């Protein structure tokens, strides 16, 4: 029982990180139609923004986190300006290939800057443990789950209770109509990239202390976040959350009860099963056309 509680906590924490990465991915996808193959590298960059601010620059924790997230927001804006904006009139496939190229560039830039030796990004709750129903669980894992819950709530408020959020949803649903209603579409698309990058940054900062900060960490995260969106329902935000938690739990529980060698096989096996049996995912697209 104690083991199970520990595993569930760790699985939910890992799943929360996947969920945030998947949400960032979905926000960009639904606003711009671009499948961002650099999404995993965005998370890696978030982790290394933490490494740069906390370890290299030696900033105190709250300041360092804020600086890392501001850096990620600037990176999102830069990505919009350098990759999306010049290619926006080309077919969307061109932009997607652009994200692949940038992903490879980012990974190698990180390798050049930080080297191949992994870093240990500290947690504000370094080494702290707490007893829950007889099980000892890490405070960091609980904090990750709580932070993710707060982020999701804030995101929901943004998208449903603020003018900019409602406008973002409008742009995601019909760009042409949004133009005709006087919305500043390019600003809203830029904001989507910034938001996607910041969410990836939060995921990266939380993941750093759970894994090692390794320049090659982006690819496995991208694959898990992608699996999460397929399982949850491509383009759906609740789906990204459910799918992310599902993949995280499957990975941790599978590693413990089945075999750690097969933990990825379990997550991807479930994804393939979904593609075969229920390709629209758990939350099939709720929006339909009415003739």
């Amino acid at each position: 029982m104690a083991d199970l509680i520990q595993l569930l906590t760790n699985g939910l924490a890992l799943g929360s990180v996947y969920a945030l990465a998947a949400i960032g991915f979905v926000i960009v996808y639904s606003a711009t139609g671009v499948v961002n193959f650099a999404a995993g590298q965005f998370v890696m960059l978030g982790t290394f923004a933490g490494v740069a601010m906390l370890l290299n620059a030696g900033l105190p924790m709250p300041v360092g986190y804020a600086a890392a997230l501001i850096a990620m927001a600037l990176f999102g804006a830069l990505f919009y300006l350098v990759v999306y904006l010049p290619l926006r009139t080309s077919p969307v496939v061109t932009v997607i290939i652009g994200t692949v190229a940038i992903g490879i560039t980012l990974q190698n830039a990180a390798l050049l800057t930080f080297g191949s030796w992994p870093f240990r990004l500290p947690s504000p709750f370094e080494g702290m443990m707490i007893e829950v129903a007889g099980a000892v669980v890490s405070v960091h894992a609980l904090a990750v789950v709580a932070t993710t819950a707060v982020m999701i709530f804030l995101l929901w408020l943004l998208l449903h209770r603020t003018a900019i959020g409602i406008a973002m949803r409008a742009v995601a649903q019909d760009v042409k109509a949004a133009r005709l209603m006087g919305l500043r579409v390019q600003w809203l698309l830029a904001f989507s990239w910034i938001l996607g990058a910041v969410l990836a940054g939060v995921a990266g900062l939380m993941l750093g202390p759970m894994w090692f900060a390794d320049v090659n960490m982006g690819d496995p995260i991208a694959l898990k976040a992608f699996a999460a969106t397929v399982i949850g329902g491509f383009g759906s935000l609740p789906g990204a959350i459910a799918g992310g938690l599902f993949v995280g739990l499957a990975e941790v529980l599978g590693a413990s009860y089945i075999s750690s060698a097969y933990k990825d096989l379990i997550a991807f096996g479930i994804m393939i099963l979904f593609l075969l049996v229920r390709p629209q995912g758990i939350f099939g697209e709720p929006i339909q056309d009415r003739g």
Partner: protein
Amino acid sequence: MLRIEDLTVAYGDIVALHGVSLEVAAGETVALIGANGAGKTTLLQTVSGLNKLRSGRMEFGGASLAPLSSADRVRAGIAQAPEGRRIFPGLSVEENLVVATSSWRRLGKSYADDLAQVFDLFPRLKERRRQLGWSLSGGEQQMLAIGRALMSRPKLLLLDEPSLGLAPRLAEEVYDRVGRIRETGLTILVVEQNTVLALAVANRGYVLETGRVVLAGSADELRRSERVREAYLGR
């Protein structure tokens, strides 16, 4: 208020509008009638800034529209209820309306009055304010499209085939509301295949055929014209 001179618009090699000129004076309701493919929608989209013009001039309130983006044209006072309604399907009725207030910076301040006015004009929308756009019937969607265009407090309202795909009774209901909007003094340019309905509400009209204005006149003149009767009124 709106003056279009010698407007030519092309999609690649296909010329959709050949030197079209038309004018809409303040307070007028003008109908632009013509068959499918005549270029009516192209004209409205060009006024709203969605198409590039090959040549010609467009003026709104005495100033050229050329330097204005689509968003700026809405702020200048040109609102459109587009062809096919283009309701935001995943936004509620109220969100569809609120999102169209001419600037989102203005939100939270003055849109309550505008919302009340639209609900006053279309009480059915008020009943369904929490429902998602896609779940509305065709007639309700059309009313929402018109209401949404009104939310930016336009000076000129562009309506693109408001009767399209609606049962005759619903089309009449929609035009009844267009008439009420006209009574408030708003300038309207309505594009329509349903000539009877459009000419009933309009002061003046233009007939567009394969990208050219072939006839212009008062609504009465057009109704009596042999050409319109044969081609569009089926008499």
